[in-house]
């Protein structure tokens, strides 16, 4: 037989086998290997995401059908322990798997109205009215999730603190209707904006030490049945949960695809640090928001703004697990306790073009006499960028400073530029002129 014909037959056979395999995986409800993730590893913690991957799709529907069929069997050994293996399969959250769960997932796939349950930031199961309204009121910096899914124009109302602090960063927030005082927003003020048609979704600030202060009131008042309350993570590496869940709740999971790819690229690189060099460096992390020495303070590893640091450094034992700052307060104490290399989160709100100048001024005033300053081993990233959705870029940049043998700083800055161009509302912003120190050398 002609060799070419054989190759063609072989290729067709391979393609056919692959296609059948894919078909079986997608549709064979009798299969017992559905590759479910553990709940801890699940990033889309929405009920209906039966296999725990990053989207709700037909696979989840098939898993639920398979569980129903399996559990009907008289052979107990074929029964599926869905509570253990597929905890998110219970789409309507009624503690049983039946046709109603299939209906809910089908409605999610068809973008039809249904109640969507999810595991919120405060580890409670709450719900939204799927698909959630795209008229969104965001409390404080959870608004960062909106540009991450390229939907900043959905922002229609804000709390009273954000315009005061960030009107230079987020366009239009100073002209938006105010929902109320940060962390004290009331059902009455939300109802008012809902009745006026201004908002249909409220995103609660979940960073720092905020608490779940509004959900119970939303349920008791019945407002949770009218508008949606989105209470998802927005700080540290868990920000990916917030992004994936928000897009899913909006009924367009593709909105999160680009950010997810960008995030996963950086996190893959960070995860490789330990594989390649054994362990991460132990490094002091401090904040800088004043030109006064008395304000030198070290981050704790469990502090909201510092959560990303854990991806690139090990904290000194004194700061492990701490949710608060440790006041260092003098050059003497800093010299005695700080590591040779130091990461600095610059917490002074300024225009990005002024960033390098301000960093030079403050570092010289506070750390001018230290070895770390003279050796230029203080690596600076901006608070505006680091704690939230831009965290992967901050990690990448710090990793390039700390592990130059593994990472290239130029690539890291390009990576930040992608964030600024695609996932932030920073028209014209240049990664090499702000957000992280790129000056000629602060000790000069």
């Amino acid at each position, binding site marked *: 037989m002609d060799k070419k014909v054989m190759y063609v037959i072989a290729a067709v056979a391979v393609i056919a086998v692959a296609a059948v395999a894919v078909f079986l995986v997608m549709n064979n409800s009798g299969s017992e290997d559905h590759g479910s993730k553990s709940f801890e590893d699940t990033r889309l913690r929405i009920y209906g995401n039966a296999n725990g991957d990053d989207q709700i799709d037909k696979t989840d529907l098939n898993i639920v059908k398979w569980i129903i069929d399996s559990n009907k069997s008289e052979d107990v050994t074929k029964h599926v322990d869905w509570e253990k293996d597929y905890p998110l399969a219970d789409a309507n959250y009624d503690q049983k798997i039946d046709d109603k769960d299939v209906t809910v997932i089908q409605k999610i796939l068809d973008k039809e109205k249904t109640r969507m349950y999810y595991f919120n930031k405060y580890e409670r199961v709450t719900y939204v009215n799927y698909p959630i309204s795209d008229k969104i009121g965001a409390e404080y910096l959870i608004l960062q999730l909106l540009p991450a899914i390229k939907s900043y124009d959905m922002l229609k109302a804000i709390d009273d603190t954000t315009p005061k602090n960030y009107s230079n960063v987020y366009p239009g927030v100073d002209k938006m209707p105010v*929902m109320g005082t940060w962390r004290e927003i009331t059902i009455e003020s939300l109802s008012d904006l809902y009745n006026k048609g201004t908002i249909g979704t409220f995103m609660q600030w979940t960073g720092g030490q905020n608490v779940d202060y509004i959900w119970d009131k939303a349920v008791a008042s019945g407002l949770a049945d009218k508008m949606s309350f989105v209470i998802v993570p927005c700080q540290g590496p868990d920000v990916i949960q917030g992004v994936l869940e928000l897009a899913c709740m909006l009924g367009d999971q593709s909105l999160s695809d680009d950010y997810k790819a960008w995030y996963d690229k950086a996190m893959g690189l960070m995860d490789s640090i330990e594989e390649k060099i054994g362990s991460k460096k132990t490094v002091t992390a401090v904040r800088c928001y004043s030109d006064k020495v008395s304000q030198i303070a070290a981050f704790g590893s469990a502090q909201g703004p510092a959560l990303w640091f854990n991806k690139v450094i090990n904290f000194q034992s004194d700061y492990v697990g701490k949710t608060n700052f440790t006041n260092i307060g003098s050059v003497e104490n800093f010299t005695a306790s700080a590591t040779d290399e130091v990461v600095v989160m610059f917490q002074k709100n300024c225009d990005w073009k002024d960033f390098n100048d301000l960093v030079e001024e403050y570092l010289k005033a506070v750390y001018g006499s230290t070895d770390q300053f003279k050796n230029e081993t203080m690596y600076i990233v901006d608070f505006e960028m680091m704690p939230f959705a831009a965290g992967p870029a901050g990690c990448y940049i710090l990793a390039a400073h700390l592990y130059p043998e593994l990472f290239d700083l130029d690539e890291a800055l390009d990576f930040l530029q992608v964030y600024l161009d695609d996932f932030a509302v920073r028209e014209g912003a240049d990664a090499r002129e702000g957000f992280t120190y790129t000056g000629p050398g602060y000790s000069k």
Partner: protein
Amino acid sequence: MTEDRHAGEQDYAKRAAALWASPDDVDALDSKAAIKEYRVSEIRKLTFTFVCIAAAVLVAGLSITYGTMNIGFFQCYEIIWDHITGNVEDKLLDYIVVEERLPRIAAALITGAGLAIAGCVMQSVMKNPLADPYTTGISSGAGFGATLAITLGISIVGGNYSIVVNAFVFALIPMFIMLGVGKLKKASPTMMIMAGIAVMFIFNSFSTVLKLNADPDALAKLYSWTVGTVSDCSWAEIPLMAVMVIAGIFLTQMFSRKLNILATGDDTAKSMGLDVENMRILLLLLISLVVATVVSFTGLIGFVGLVAPHVCRIFVGADNRYLIISSAMFGAVLLEVADFIGRTVIAPATLQVGVVTAFIGGPMFLYLIMRQKKSSW
């Protein structure tokens, strides 16, 4: 000059007549005048007390009907009536009026009354016009308890009540120290209040250490609690607060005559058969329980405890039989008005009630003391 001379002549005529009158007639004339003066004074005190009570009812009644949502005056009362009779038509409006506005108003009235009687009793017992929950360390103790819970997560109980329980327990510590000093050393009121101030500084320094190292987010939360707010109070907390404050008003009113005796000075009070030390301890313990209860739910609301009794003293004098109840009502009105202003002036954002009390209480107090021109309180 002519008028002065005329008045002088009348006075002279009266005294001349009195010279010729019998001693019984003189006594009768003096008694009549005294009785008349006493009655006028009593009517004035009662009138002021009733005005305060009426103002509390009026302000509460009006503020229920005003908020961010445009709910009509009569509609509000219909909603409350429907809620009472179980005919709730609109669950959301019912929630806004009954679960958001009403408990807030109730909490403001109760807290204002509680803080005011605390200030009133402390000022009388300590014989010090500056005595209030702040200067006796109660607020500092509560503040330290809350700081522990917010910044370090250290609390006596977990969950939603971690701050409340911490604040309550730590609020009582300064009072016990103060009472201990008083009992052990048979100390004077001045020494007790100085002990309270010392404890206040100790707790404040502990709190400051924790704040210095706190996360900015925790600091913001702590600051919000420190300034004081009634917006977090719900019906779950109101009964406890109400029972403590009403019991406090009732009991201190019961002891008002003894408070009057105590206010005359320790030696005089003892000569009149009063157990001065134990009475002082009893009263301070009573009002410290009241204050600890309210501040643990509302945070530290300053000024009401200091100002309310002083303002009332201008109208009803130092007689605790009237001063306690009128201070309670005036404190309730003051805090309710402050909360109303706080939630409407920059609505839908809010100003903390503690800020507003200082804003309106400070100038009002200054104006009144300037008008009063008293050399001492």
